[in-house]
């Protein structure tokens, strides 16, 4: 009896229901519904506004970070790029440059940071973990060195209010618009282009990707350029949102981004993961902390809960992978023949 490939897979509805994204979505919706009913002041538009304002930098940087991690690399310098672009925006504006031009230069600086990371990783062949730990210190050092312990706070009012303004009176912050545009672009790039196929191929096997015609070096360089420029954009937003350019802005943000990407189901070993899961991961972490804060839970407890969730989610990836095999063995129709090794002896 001949079997087709389809016989070995699960029906489409089952693949959808057991998918990482479906579980994340169910968790998120369940959490929101529960919190609206049980936590005073959670069920207001304000909760969503603050949530999106607060998580916007993580949401933005998580987009290119997802692709970097899918190739099996990592970029830990993103928060320092946020700090550096923030300082540049502040310093250049203070010296009299029009803020629009300063913002463009800050973005270009982010691109340059990404180029340095990408060159060292893709063309020199150094491990990205080591390179970006180095540039994490380097870019942060430059940022703090440029401004010292001072902060630039004199930004034009119309720019700072732009960063916190809303789309009409919906309560949805304006920053959501560029995020959605970028999310759409990144989704197209990763899931519906040959470039994106290459990204997965590199994560599964660099060697195989190379032999199947993927320009591994160029792909990795492009990804680091993207994290650099998107981080710089997040830096410009961060600066305007708080109206304050400081060398220590967004310190530690890189770990929040990596945590959200992993929670979203991206494998740290590369080759696996989807953007939707990551976006849900960021929103899930944001919703949990905002709900707990409203409950008056202290920051240490919030961190413990999010840490435990992250570990559980990484473990669940292995559990999910093991589960379908288990159920298939139990189902009589597809149970494999056990005779050969057992019966003879």
């Amino acid at each position, binding site marked *: 009896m001949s079997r087709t490939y389809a016989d070995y897979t699960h029906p489409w509805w089952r693949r959808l229901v057991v998918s990482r994204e479906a579980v994340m979505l169910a968790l998120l919706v369940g959490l929101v519904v529960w919190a*609206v009913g049980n936590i005073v002041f959670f069920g*207001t538009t304000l909760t*969503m506004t603050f949530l999106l304002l607060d998580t916007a930098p993580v949401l933005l940087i998580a987009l290119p970070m997802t692709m970097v991690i899918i190739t099996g690399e990592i970029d830990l310098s993103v928060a320092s790029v946020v700090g550096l672009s923030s300082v540049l925006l502040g310093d250049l504006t203070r010296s009299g440059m029009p803020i629009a031009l300063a913002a463009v230069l800050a973005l270009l600086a982010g691109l340059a940071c990404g180029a340095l990371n990408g060159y060292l990783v893709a063309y020199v062949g150094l491990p990205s973990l080591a390179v970006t730990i180095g540039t994490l210190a380097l870019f942060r050092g430059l940022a703090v060195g440029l401004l010292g312990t001072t902060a630039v706070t004199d930004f034009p009012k119309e720019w700072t209010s732009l960063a916190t303004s809303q789309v009409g009176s919906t309560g949805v912050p304006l920053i959501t618009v560029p995020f959605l545009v970028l999310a759409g672009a990144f989704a197209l790039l990763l899931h519906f282009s040959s470039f994106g196929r290459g990204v997965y191929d590199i994560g599964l096997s660099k060697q195989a990707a190379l032999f199947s015609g993927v320009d591994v070096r160029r792909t990795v360089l492009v990804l680091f350029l993207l994290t650099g420029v998107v981080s710089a954009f997040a830096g410009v937003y961060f600066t305007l949102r708080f109206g*304050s350019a400081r060398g220590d802005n967004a310190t530690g943000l890189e770990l929040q981004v990596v945590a959200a990407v992993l929670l979203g189901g991206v494998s740290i070993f590369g080759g696996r993961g989807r953007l939707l899961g990551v*976006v849900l991961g960021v929103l899930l972490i944001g919703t949990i902390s905002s709900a707990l804060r409203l409950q008056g839970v202290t920051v240490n407890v919030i961190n413990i809960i999010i840490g435990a969730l992250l570990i559980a989610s990484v473990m669940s990836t292995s559990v999910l992978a093991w589960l379908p095999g288990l159920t298939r063995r139990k189902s009589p129709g597809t149970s494999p023949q056990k005779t050969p090794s057992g019966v003879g002896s």
Partner: protein
Amino acid sequence: MAAAIIGSLGLSACGNATDDATSGSSGSASAATKLSITFLPKNLGNPYFDTSDAGGKKAVEEFGGTYAEVGPQTGSPDAQVQYINTAAQQRTSGLVISANDPKAICDAVNQARQAGTKVVTFDSDTDPTCRDLFVNQATAEGIAKVQTDLVTKGIGDTGEIAILSASANATNQNAWIDMIKKDLAANHPNVKLVDVVYGNDDDQTSFDKTAALLQSHPNLKGIISPTTVGIAAAARYLSTSDKKGKVYLTGLGTPNSMKEFVKDGTVKDFALWNPGDLGYLAAFAAKALADGTITGKEGDKFTAGSLGEYTVGADSVVLLGDPFVFNAENIDQFNF
């Protein structure tokens, strides 16, 4: 795809606009009967703020409000903003903040104030436009004067003294040193300031500078160190040198870092403000604003429990009072 998620999140949140209104009115109704005061220090787990916030808690319990303490793990303004937003959502009656950045938290604070929350800053002020009141721990004049008084009394109002400061361009320290110089010239003609050295707020450098100071000025009778790192390092050097008990050391220090040197006789007394009193006063200031006793304008008067009556000064600032002098009798009561 992402749009759908955010959209659904938005819908679930927007769908409760009516809940919003009802919970809002119930929130303010309960606030009318019981004031809620929330303390937001620069960061949690900091002994200084643990002490000040404990003072705030004591005050809130005295006037029968509900007390809460929230805060970020590290002293960054963006993390503080999240807690200000949360307090605004909860319609807290009074928010007492030590600001991590004078400007960055302004928008969030003003949003909370528009929602009806009264905002008091303590320890570190924000821009005066974005708080109702600032409770100032001490004025520069007060800090300079208490150190001059201590040192001149300690050496019998005659002889050579020196100053071990932080860095050469530390704004606060330089302002105090100028005032100390003027005070000495005007009121203590027999006391001579022979040297000012800088330990850069580094323990080892301050330690070495103290050694050098004692070597180059054998007749030195007193040292002022207007910085917590400096005074502790100087005390550590003195405690093992033969000048112990002969050179009088004072300045600004924290009880925990000075306890052993006060106990072993190296240091008799030193100054700082009492953070517990600071938090206590800030809580009463928040209460007075929230229940409408004061509006925060100059000349407003309110009573702060056992500390007595206070008057609001220029720029909506309330001054805690003279710095607090720590000595062997009282140092064990403090833990910060």
